[in-house]
């Protein structure tokens, strides 16, 4: 009993301490280059929390991160690294905008369902390629998903310039493909927060139900924990690899739809892969694969992302600082061995003191 309590405590302590250490690292780096870290963090936090508009924007960013984070997490649980979240998000973004622009006159509920459905399928197919190659040929999903990222990037830009338009930006989607919710937009004074937030909350619940209450989810976890034992128990490793990658890519594609329809309402040529993909990986690692943890990590990173925009003007600090803090946080999450050793040392010295009394 004591050990479960302790591991639960660790499950909260490790991310919390990692966040703290990440911020401290960022502060030290800023001091080193002659910036004032207090000003920078204050600019970041006050910028977001003093304005309903920017709080809405942070939640909008968190919404997309929840999808990409959950996407990475489910493949991770099955033992795979889907580094291709960014490319799958892009695939979903293209599909959603393409459908929305092709059938602008369909009723809103039908068009949104079609658009989002197409995005989920596009993301799932893009990830499924890597899953199938892994399952049947043993090809490293890390390298394949990375290569598919760059392929998606170039193909997207090609489709924008040659198929959807002749320029670098598509038309805006019609109001029947609009994701915004009147009262939410009003509440946040015109931010781009949208019904993606509700979809995200539903998906968080569904993810939890799937992983903990359903046989298919149990199989995915079992294969991730021990592929040999699960195969021996009659589960198909191939099937679970492909299934987890399909869900993973589908979630990323859903994120792409919400980002495309909700945030921008159009599609434009990209110079690099969307950072939402890689930050989704960070969100999943910080949330330790727990859907609720991922949701809260997304909010944190949403605030960091949006707040970073205030640092150059209000504190003179380059906004890349936020990404450095994110990377540092994930470093400490990954290297949590050092935190666990430190915690154990503290605990054992405490019990030793008690024993002496």
């Amino acid at each position, binding site marked *: 009993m004591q050990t479960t309590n302790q591991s639960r405590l660790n499950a909260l302590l490790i991310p919390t301490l990692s966040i703290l250490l990440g911020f401290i690292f960022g502060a030290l780096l800023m001091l080193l280059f002659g910036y004032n870290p207090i000003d920078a963090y204050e600019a970041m936090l006050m910028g977001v929390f003093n304005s309903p508009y920017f709080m809405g924007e942070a939640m909008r960013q968190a919404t997309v991160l929840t999808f990409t984070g959950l996407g990475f997490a489910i493949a991770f649980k099955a033992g795979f690294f889907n580094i291709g979240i960014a490319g799958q998000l892009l695939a979903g973004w293209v599909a959603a905008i393409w459908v929305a622009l092709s059938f602008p006159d369909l009723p809103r509920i039908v068009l949104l369902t079609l658009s989002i459905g197409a995005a989920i399928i596009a993301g799932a197919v893009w990830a499924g390629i890597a899953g199938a190659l892994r399952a049947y040929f043993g090809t490293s999903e890390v390298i394949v998903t990375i290569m598919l990222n760059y392929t998606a990037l170039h193909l997207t830009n090609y489709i924008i310039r040659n198929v959807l338009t002749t320029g670098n930006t598509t038309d805006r989607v019609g109001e029947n493909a609009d994701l915004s919710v009147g009262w939410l937009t009003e509440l946040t004074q015109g931010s781009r927060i949208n019904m993606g937030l509700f979809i995200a909350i539903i998906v968080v619940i569904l993810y939890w139900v799937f992983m903990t209450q359903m046989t298919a989810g149990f199989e995915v976890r079992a294969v991730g924990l021990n592929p040999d034992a699960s195969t021996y128990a009659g589960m198909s490793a191939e099937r679970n690899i492909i299934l987890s990658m399909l869900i993973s890519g589908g979630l990323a594609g859903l994120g792409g739809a919400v980002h495309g329809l909700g945030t921008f309402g159009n599609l434009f040529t990209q110079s690099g892969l969307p950072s939402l993909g890689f930050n989704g990986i960070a969100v999943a690692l910080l949330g330790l694969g727990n859907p609720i943890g991922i949701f809260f990590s997304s909010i944190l990173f949403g605030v960091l992302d949006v707040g970073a925009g205030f640092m150059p003007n209000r504190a003179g600090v380059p906004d890349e600082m936020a990404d450095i803090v994110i990377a540092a946080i994930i*470093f400490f999450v990954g290297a949590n061995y050092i935190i666990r050793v430190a915690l154990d040392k503290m605990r054992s010295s405490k019990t030793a003191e008690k024993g002496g009394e």
Partner: protein
Amino acid sequence: MNIVSLLQLIVSSSLVYAAPLIFTALGGTFSERSGVVNIGLEGIMVMGAFMSAIFNLMFYSTFGAMTPWLGLLAGGLIGILFSLIHAVATINLRADHIVSGTVINLAAPALAVFLTRAIYGAAQTGPLARSFGFADIFLLEKIPVIGPIFFQNTSGPAYLGILTAVIAWVVLFKTRFGLRLRSVGEHPHAAETLGINVYLMKYAGVMISGFLGGIGGAIQAQAIHNEFGILTVAGQGFIAMAAMIFGKWNPLGAMAAAIFFGFAQSLARIGNYIPIIQDIPGVWLQVLPYLLTIIILVGVVGRSVAPKDLGNTFVKSK
């Protein structure tokens, strides 16, 4: 365009694009032979590219024509420094290798652009003071036919890379150090029993990969982009890893694969001059290197065997 000058163009531009891949793939080989997966090579290349660009701009007035070559060393040194993060995380702190590599890839572009802004007040450095340009290879250029195709107006760093690959092969397969490094990647506990310092060997593997990856990035900045910005290194570190796997974790194989990928990358630039290829839409040439990587990985995977203990954390026996 006659056939000799066409071949000359294909060979030289393939080598220009291959040079960063050769060094980085060799780096990956050392790291993985010691049992540490290093997907952070992409980030290490970013840091190498950044450092060499800064060095190039700051020291051109001191070193003149030698600047880009010394810039390689600057890139290599920052690469070692950055690879130490990966080494400490994976070897001492028992972090997952892919997670730690992902951290490197998240941190490097952010840090490099942060520093570029801190120094230059902009997200990119602007044109470098001196790039590698094209060079003739001493004496070999005089050979008839072969000389003009392979050794005139070509990439100096690529030939340095080929030379480095030969040296790397000798080090890995013909020296005591190489044998120890490989044994640590195959069976660390057996190696430990024989008195080999496993941690030291793994550190050596990762640091060599940092040095070579940093050089790879320095070439990318100084020979291809002629500046440093966020787009200077875009996936080359990952392609180099694919070259390493394609080359079956053998330096010479990795080098050959890197040259092949260099050729694939160069097609997007010079495809317009080559008959038949000029009729293929540009987008296919752009995605070709990435698709080829996937096809090749699927095709060779049965025959290439990774070091046995790759990716596992080694815990010292008590």
